[in-house]
């Protein structure tokens, strides 16, 4: 299956990745090869087959609504690249 450089650029944009111009061809080829393998799925009739998103049947997991262990603000911010006044700092969003 043929995947174009333009398609790779589009998907990379959706995934918030910058792909170097030099790597676009390689990724396009790899994706094409893998998706070609996936073409075999089209030959299987799946009319009326429900999709599975979970391997073992379990219903909703409920529990009592009470407070259990949780991270303190200080601990939650410990790994932040930048933090200030108990908050994560990000680059300016509104110009």
């Amino acid at each position, binding site marked *: 299956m043929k*995947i174009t450089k333009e*398609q*790779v650029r589009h*998907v*990379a944009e*959706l*995934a*918030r*990745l*910058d*792909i170097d111009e030099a*790597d676009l061809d390689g*990724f396009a080829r*790899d*994706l094409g*090869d*893998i*998706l070609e*393998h*996936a*073409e*075999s*799925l*089209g030959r*299987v009739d*799946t009319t009326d*087959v*429900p*999709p*599975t*998103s*979970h*391997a*073992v049947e*379990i219903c909703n*997991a409920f*529990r009592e609504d009470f407070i*259990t262990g949780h*991270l303190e603000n200080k*601990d*939650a911010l*410990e*790994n*932040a*690249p*930048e933090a200030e006044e108990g908050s*994560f700092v*990000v*680059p*300016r*969003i509104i110009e």
Partner: protein
Amino acid sequence: MKSADLCGLSIHRAQELLRDKEISAEELTGAVLERIRTKDPDIGAFINVTEQLARKQAKQADAAIAEGSAGPLAGIPIAIKDLICTKGIATTCASRILADFVPPYDATVTEKLNKAGAVMVGKLNMDEFAMGSSTENSAFKLTRNPRDLARIPGGSSGGSAAAVAADMCLGSLGSDTGGSIRQPAAHCGVVGLKPTYGRVSRFGLVAFASSLDQIGPLTGDVEDTAIMLSVIAGHDPRDSTSVGRQVPDYRACLSTDISGLTFGIPVEYRGAEGLDPRVGRAFEEACKTLTKAGAKCVEISLPHTDQALAAYYLIAPAEASSNLARYDGVKYGFRSREAAGLKDMYKRTRSEGLGPEVKRRILLGTYALSAGYYDAYYKKASQIRTLIQQDFARAFDKCDIILSPTAPTPAFKIGEKTDDPVQMYLSDIFTLSANLAGVPGISVPCGFTENNLPIGLQMMGNHFAEDALLKAAYAYEQAAGINGKKTATGNNEA
């Protein structure tokens, strides 16, 4: 006892010696740390050796043993794949983006190991975010196969398998999304178990593909795997997909009597694409051993075997592309310093922090989930997954355990498959169906090639039938007389 002999102990033998005060936990831990110091420069299994913590935990274990309050793994040196959270100890997922991440909490399995008295000697190398079959995708280092240093240890839990094979810990934890415990166990000649989905809590396991991921043990023999599984299994309110079933004493389920068990051999696996004849022969030999031990072997069919690989390589990347969206440079991990604005910061952070295989899978998964392709790829693969589960359910009407080779080839050479993702993905061909179906699978050593490369036999059981699975694996191990750590000779001391 000599230091080298201590490192090569099984967990069950070390338990006896510790209990009888023939050895101390401090001695055992000291010997293992010394082994890591001399051996790991060649192997590269560890990302981080936690020597101070290990010595402290060993001291505590000796005290607990002395006062009779010791847990089941008291004083046993264990190492953990570096995607399982360890409070206060870096957990990198072998990725630049998490190179400095120090978890503020323990994974449930880490807590359980601590509570059982285990001694943690370090964190183990892996493919970045568990994406790979050779551990060559680690951002930090190569891990070499202890049986042949020119070869890969398998992956993604390559460090976990290599560390056990090279006597640098008595047991380890890995994670398995498509074979990442079983395949490296096969390549390094150790035992590796992927439990049923939901058997072990995933709380604190860094997510790759949430509907497929499962934590499991790697050890020198089946009895050790049973011991470790009893410690880490069980329901956890912090993982809503963990299942509230009783955890049996798996070790008590072991027996060499398998006369009542029926083993199913999928006809589709015979002559599978890329099956090495040496692996094929070892597999046939293993079937004979089981028959001789009194078990029945029958042919079964898993009709959608051909589609499993394609379904897996759409579902797993799709889930990964969603799970890895969290690495955006805001809450933890690496942040690019040269960004102009928020969106640019996201893109630069992810592009600089993630490696090529991770990017490849994020792109593939994003494509499979994107508008216009969702039905053709992701939904279709999820429907195929249903058919694969039905195949397994029907097969388990006819047999107790499904048999196959673990990997189609013995360990390949470092660099041999790095340029061809599809070839690399084919090394998971026998293992990934168990993840799609959610059933447990174990790899046990079943022979060696002419140059001493281990070959693994895979057994798969029905949901939550780890007791029958471990019993079958134990009986096979005893009947075949193969212990991957002890039987191998030749260059394993290289």
